[in-house]
């Protein structure tokens, strides 16, 4: 890949970054639900 090539997923880097941040938000939500159920 050339240095500025797009990522293999989602077409652009900003979209991939957004996916990583969305994943973080979903994990925090998941942990919160986990604590509500089992905590």
């Amino acid at each position, binding site marked *: *890949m*050339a*240095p*500025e*090539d*797009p*990522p*293999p997923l989602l077409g652009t*880097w900003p979209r*991939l*970054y957004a996916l*990583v*941040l969305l*994943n*973080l938000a979903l*994990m*925090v939500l998941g*942990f*919160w639900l*986990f*604590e509500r159920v*089992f*905590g």
Partner: protein
Amino acid sequence: MSSLDWFILLGTLAFIVVWGVWKTRGVATAQEYLRGTDLRWPTIGLSIMATQASAITFLSVPGQAYEDGMRFVQFYFGLPIAMVIICVVFVPIYYRLNVMTAYAYLEQRFDTKVRVLAALLVMVGRGLAAGISIYAPAIILSSLLGWSLNAMTLLMGSAVILYTVSGGAKAVSQTQKQQMVVILAGILIAAVVIAYRLPDDVSVATATSLAGALGRVNPVDFSFNLDSRYTFWSGITGGLFLALSYFGTDQSQVQRYLGGRSMAESRLGLLFNGILKIPMQFLILFIGVLVFAFYLFERPPVFFNGPTLEAARQSAQGPALAEVEARWATTFDARRDQAVALAAALADDDAAAEAQARAGLLAAQAELDGVRAEAKALIKQAVPTAELKDSDYIFVSFVLKYLPPGLIGLLLAVILSAAMSSTASELNALGSTTVVDLYQRLWRPGASDRHILRASKLFTVFWGLVAMAFAAFAALVDNLIQAVNILGSIFYGVILGIFLVAFFLKWVRATPAFLAALLAQTGVIVLYFVSDIGFLWFNVIGCALVVGAAALLQAVWPGGSPTPAPLEETT
């Protein structure tokens, strides 16, 4: 340990070392040795994760969950955000300048003294951390297995030096890929086996609820409390700053992704870490929760450091300790009965019985904690040098006592693989920084590639010996993983501040930046000793102090260093 365990342990470790040496036998230039080349993103991602996951991760973290619950996972909430910022800001700059170390950039932007200061700050932190990386598993495993501490330190240190010196950055990354596979497989197998060891009528869900009733299921805390070490807010801010500094400016991590085939490969490796790191930590903490639930039904020792407990039993405090241990047994039985009652109430969905059992379980736990505190006080009298915080022994003592033959060897291989992987990165980075930022820059600027390659290998050996010496003579600190993180937080905020000034405050020149870094570092060290602020906040404070002081000093320092020339490729 059985022969099977020894075979799996030694076979796994020997394979990784031999494979690393063989795979990188062609490394012949300083560029290849110091930076590595042509790595693909899976190798980079696994290498980044393996560098961060030290043996301490597996010794301390499950014990931390056992004692304190899962809130430590919040420490990593800032990490994915940091990965994105590093991909956007740091990686393009490092690639454009083709730097060998992160600190070379600082000379382009400021001057030599800022570069050397940042390199020295990192070397102090990493040098001590490399020692702890070897020492942590050595002290615990030698204590529990009766192995010689010095022999373990020597064996682990020598193996790491062997393949790090042989193949440099490439060998470190290649071996870390194998080590991370062993680590991830070990974690998953451990979780399944511990779940299997629960009583037949207790499901994983019920066990989690029982642990939750005693405050161990607490992965998210939204309260804004500066004194609390791990909250959502400290993780998303302090954890972000620590991760930015660690992954963006610490050579042991920068070196991992600078070895990528392209900038895209480096970015993908970092994002891979941003997605997988938190689930991995969550799983390790969850293993600690399952061990806690397991010990609701199986009586744990009153103190997890077995040899120290035995020494106390043999001392003049022995009779008093025996009486406390007898009460420990009866109090444990009472807590187990309450746990059984709560499990039954949960199964029957009986709200009234559940509330009653929860209250009973909490009271029984408080009583048990009281007996344990009495035992610890007696142990301290019997063995005054004993470290009373035994949480680092909880997981490994469980592994040794309850896991089947074969798996003990695998789990010990996981712990030692993690120790070797993080130590290798640290030695590799320390060797590179010493050669590139000090030796080549200050003393031998015109040295040949061959000379630099040889010097790099010698400095790697030197740092390996320093780490082994530190490991051989260090004393057990309160909690190993916290010691490493506290040490990192004291230095990392300032280092990150220097880089942020370099990136974003273009009008700030070298001398104000240098003085600001010195002032901020002094301020953070003073704060550490005189305040009760949670250590994660030192990352924010150190960084903010550098940025604020640099801007202020530049405003009153019109005769600072000349504006630097446009950035060019350097090494």
